């Protein structure tokens, strides 16, 4: 296994699958402004995924570019965390999923800017600016809904109760991470966990939300073991290339 390729693939797949999920809101947002906001964020994430997967392909050196990696891999070859493939649910669920992810991505990209892989560092520098806007957006919605009406509070608390079990996987590390940290390419996720904790705790306090006491935690995405949802996402996303191989437009 090429650890360098694998490492970038994981980051790229997180962006790609969350971007695809957010894109499902296109034309279905609760209000026009949020429809546009979610698709804007989707576009940023898919743009980041394009840069990351193109770079992963060049590191792999087997002639696969970002498009080939996105459209011609099977489920088990995707290495995203399980959180990002979870269904959109209601608007609050989507904002909660986004918030848990953005609160991780901001300190992650800050640290990744120091990568000795200069292209990866450049992608991090570029993406960080976008991620700051995303985190502002998702955190303020979590606060508004949590500290809102009884119904909005209850519904977003239920989203937190459901999604919390997937949050821990954001900090999953294995031999790929260890190798990349040793080479100065990757980020030690233990070092950014405090920052994530601080953001999450501050926002939940203001939002009057409670972190569930149930500590049941999912992982497996980094090894290609996913929830049932990923296959359906890929069926939708990859349809055109599967039905008409190598088509371009």
């Amino acid at each position, binding site marked *: 296994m090429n650890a360098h390729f694998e490492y970038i693939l994981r980051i790229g797949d997180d962006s790609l699958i969350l971007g695809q999920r957010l894109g499902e809101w296109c034309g279905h947002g609760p209000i026009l*402004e*949020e429809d*546009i*906001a979610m698709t*804007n*964020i989707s*576009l*940023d*994430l*898919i*743009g*980041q995924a*394009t*840069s990351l997967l193109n770079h992963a392909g060049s590191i792999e050196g087997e002639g696969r570019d970002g498009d080939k990696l996105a459209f011609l891999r099977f489920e088990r070859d995707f290495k995203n965390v399980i959180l990002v493939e979870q269904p959109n649910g209601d608007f609050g669920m989507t904002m909660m999923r986004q918030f848990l992810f953005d609160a991780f991505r901001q300190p992650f990209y800050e640290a990744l800017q120091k990568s000795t892989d*200069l*292209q990866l*560092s*450049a*992608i991090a*520098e*570029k*993406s*960080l*600016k*976008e991620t*700051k*806007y995303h985190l*502002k*957006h998702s955190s*303020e*919605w979590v*606060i*508004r809904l949590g500290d809102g009406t009884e119904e909005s509070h209850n519904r977003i608390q239920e989203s937190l109760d459901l999604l919390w079990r997937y949050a821990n996987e954001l900090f999953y590390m294995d031999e790929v991470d260890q190798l990349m940290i040793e080479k100065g390419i990757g980020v030690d996720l233990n070092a950014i966990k405090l920052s994530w904790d601080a953001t999450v705790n501050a926002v939940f306090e203001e939002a009057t939300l409670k972190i569930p006491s149930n500590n049941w935690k999912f992982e497996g995405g980094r090894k290609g073991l996913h929830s049932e949802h990923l296959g359906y996402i890929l069926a939708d996303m990859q349809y055109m290339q599967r039905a008409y191989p190598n088509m371009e437009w």
Partner: protein
Amino acid sequence: MVNSTKIWALLEEVSDPEIPVLTVVDLGVIRNVAIEGEHVQITITPTYSGCPAMKLIEDQIIEKLNENGLMDVGVDLVLSPAWTTDWLTESGKNKLREYGIAPPENEVDKSVLFSAPTVVPCPKCKSSNTRMVSLFGSTACKAHYQCNECLEPFDYFKCLR
């Protein structure tokens, strides 16, 4: 003889596909022009990662230079240093304002839903009594505002730093 002044002048004629009032030079996406013999290499940078206009900008640059007899042209894309609205030229900001898009104020928006967002004067009536409707607008680089005085809805080219 190819010289960089001539190439920069030609690039001034290539407009941004999404905001045609701006040239790619105004936008600050041209990072370098290098000439080596007959070969011209232009380096560009995207405004946002997902900006769908980059490929078209690349094609338009090549087309413009080809039309002017420069046949050996390459365009490459760099991400670092990351684009910032500080690279918009002054003339670009004025063109935006005249076009009806408020140019970036010199601060990153602090708020989506709470506290006071950046004060952005209305490009139509100049009033500072405006409100942010949404931090995310018709393209990745814009937010959506409305003027409370003349009621005109308008785009704000948001500050990115």
